């Protein structure tokens, strides 16, 4: 690819969503058509595909004075962000129409929603594409700022509370990650790396063995806690269930499906540096501890969960914990499974959250106990929700089955039998809880109320994104073609040491 084309392909996934956001902000007179919102996800997806082809053939590309850079991991994450964003943005207009009909939002609320969602996508793509670790930090903090008002969209007591906790906990957590970044920068400067390159990831990764081990250890611990906060890992996870349950359904899908994973990719990038500087044991212990504690917490809370949006939020924590465990194992197989898990979880969780939004509109409650016989009342919606939960439970043919199996196999092969066995036990607990709660929502007899005659609610066109998401998740579970090469390359970047 020539330099000009590289610049366009690397800048477009950041610039187009930001421009779309600006257009939504500037257009006061009339609503933009609903499909205008699909332009930026489509750009991200197209950018991901182009980069996937380029980097598997010619290796990493960079532009803008090493500001933006793409390797196989970038292309993979960009594809996941693009796919999830397409599904979430396609579900947006139907969600907003319902909210307006119910009087929860108005015209300016809709405009603000669209503007913030696209700014959020732009910030997320900047985080994925950033070559400079400082810029990566700035982009991830920007996602917190942009999504704060999406979490607090409804302005009720609950949503203001969720937004406050979200901004305070995430900003403080991510501030710790910045302290970690500063320490790594200090170590790099002392190792003789110039000011301009001392936060440049490829340079750091290449010269990581020269970094001072003690300083790097301190920095890495702060990085895992800090970016772990945005990825929903213990100890700074308390914002996650609140924010994910209060945000509008498509935004919950984006936050849970990709934002957690994008923050975790930052940890993966630092892992390469820390492994070279202090050996893999240190990061392995940090990540495995965080993973098992998160898993234990998520599983125990899932057992008593009464709210289905919070149930999905804790299931996100469970899956992020599995991803962290895979990263702790760190072999190429484990990292490939982690990346596949990120993609599968993103797709399945998007479908689950989007259908939870439809369920909320249908039933006007998020209490599990008040939803009954969903499969009879709304067969299409019930089936989509059921299949999404089956995918999240890790059943075949969905890709989460293959990736969980991969993580477990890699865990036993790498001599991490005990942590993996404990994790399996906790996953089984979460499995039972999630399955029982979902079955209660889906099955059962429709209560006899003469006022409401039984007419199954139809999903219509709103069902299309759900079906596409489930199909994509199942297809990834059957074969990773044509992405196999990209997945192997991306896994080699993190796990190839």
């Amino acid at each position, binding site marked *: 690819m020539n330099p000009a084309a590289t610049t366009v392909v690397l800048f477009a996934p950041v610039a187009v969503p930001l421009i779309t956001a600006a257009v939504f902000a500037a257009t006061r007179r009339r609503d933009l058509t609903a499909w205008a919102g699909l332009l930026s996800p489509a750009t991200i997806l197209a950018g991901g595909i182009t980069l996937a082809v380029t980097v598997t053939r010619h290796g990493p590309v960079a532009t803008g004075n090493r500001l933006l850079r793409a390797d196989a991991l970038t292309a993979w994450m960009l594809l996941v962000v693009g796919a999830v964003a397409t599904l979430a943005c396609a579900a947006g207009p139907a969600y907003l129409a319902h909210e307006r009909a119910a009087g929860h939002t108005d015209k300016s609320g809709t405009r603000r929603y669209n503007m913030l969602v696209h700014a959020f996508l732009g910030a997320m793509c900047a985080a994925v594409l950033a070559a*400079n670790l*400082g*810029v990566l*930090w*700035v982009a991830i*903090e*920007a996602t*917190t*700022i942009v999504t*704060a*008002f999406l979490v*607090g969209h409804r*302005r*009720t*007591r*609950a949503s*203001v*509370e*969720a*937004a*406050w*906790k979200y*901004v*305070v906990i995430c*900003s*403080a957590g991510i*501030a710790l990650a*910045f*302290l970690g*970044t*500063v*320490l790594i*920068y*200090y*170590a790099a*400067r*002392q190792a003789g790396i110039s*000011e*301009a390159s*001392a*936060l440049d990831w490829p340079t750091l990764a290449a010269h990581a063995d020269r970094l*001072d081990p*003690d*300083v790097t250890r*301190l920095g890495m611990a702060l990085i895992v806690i800090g970016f772990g906060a945005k990825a929903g890992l213990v100890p700074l996870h308390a914002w996650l*269930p*609140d924010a994910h*349950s*209060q945000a509008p359904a498509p935004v919950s899908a984006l936050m849970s499906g990709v934002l957690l994973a994008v923050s975790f990719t930052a940890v993966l990038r630092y892992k390469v540096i820390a492994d070279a500087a202090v050996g893999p044991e240190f990061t392995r212990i940090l990540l495995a501890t965080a993973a098992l504690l998160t898993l234990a917490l998520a599983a125990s*809370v899932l057992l*008593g*969960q009464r709210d289905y949006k*919070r149930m999905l939020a804790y299931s996100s924590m469970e899956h992020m914990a599995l991803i962290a465990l895979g990263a702790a194992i760190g072999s190429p197989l484990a990292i490939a499974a982690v990346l596949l898990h990120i993609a599968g979880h993103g797709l399945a969780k998007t479908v689950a959250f989007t259908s939870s939004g439809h369920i909320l509109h249908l039933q006007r409650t998020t209490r599990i106990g008040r939803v009954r016989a969903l499969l009879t009342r709304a067969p299409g919606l019930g089936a989509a929700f059921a299949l999404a939960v089956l995918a999240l439970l890790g059943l075949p043919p969905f890709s989460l089955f293959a990736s969980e199996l991969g993580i477990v196999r890699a865990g036993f092969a790498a001599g991490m039998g005990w942590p993996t066995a404990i994790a399996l036990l906790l996953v089984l607990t979460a499995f039972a809880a999630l399955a029982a709660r979902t079955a209660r929502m889906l099955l059962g007899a429709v209560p006899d109320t003469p006022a409401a005659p039984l007419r199954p609610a139809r999903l219509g066109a709103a069902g299309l994104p759900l079906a596409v998401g489930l199909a994509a998740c199942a297809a990834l579970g059957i074969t990773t073609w044509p992405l196999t090469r990209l997945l192997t390359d991306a896994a080699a970047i993190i796990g190839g040491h």
Partner: protein
Amino acid sequence: MSDSAYTQLLDLACGAFLLAAVVVLWRRDLATAVRVFALQGLALAAVAALLGAHEHRWDLLAVAAGIGVLRAWALPALMRRALAAGGEARESQPLVNVTASLLTAAALTLLAYAVSRPLVALNPTPATRALPVGLAVALIGFFILVTRRRALSQVVGFLLLDNGITAVAFLAASGVPLIVELGVSFDVLLAVLVLRILTTRMRAVFGHTDIDDLRELHD
């Protein structure tokens, strides 16, 4: 500037920086806290300016000026406005009383010195020797963030945390690259703006800004 004068001025600025954090912890009056926070911003700008003058880096002087404008003027002005709109100028009952808070601050400062020994050992210069001060302020900020009950006190805690980290960046490596510094400052400014708007909304729906009453959401 002679080396000993540089060291003494740097230590003086760092001392004022740490003292400001302790005063914020000690006083419950939010207006005082904001005023002291502005002074702390000046101390931080002075640290950056001293480093710039010592290393003959004029770009650092510009960064110092920027930090002064943001942390000694813009952020305190934002906080003062939020205070004027609110009227709840006192921290009601912090979770930890003043004596215990001050003792904790002393313990946190010792912890900062213990933790940063490898950082100082890597490159012992007058600047890195003062580095534990930045870490101590960050820890005190975190402590304020978790123990205070007014929304605005939490914001002050967050800002102290951020000041501390910026100080560490300057003392360890004369600051992060300019583009990162700009991005970070912009993010902090926006985060505080967002928190200010959320405080207004909190007052609108709850009637006050006591964090203890945020208990709609639980499992």
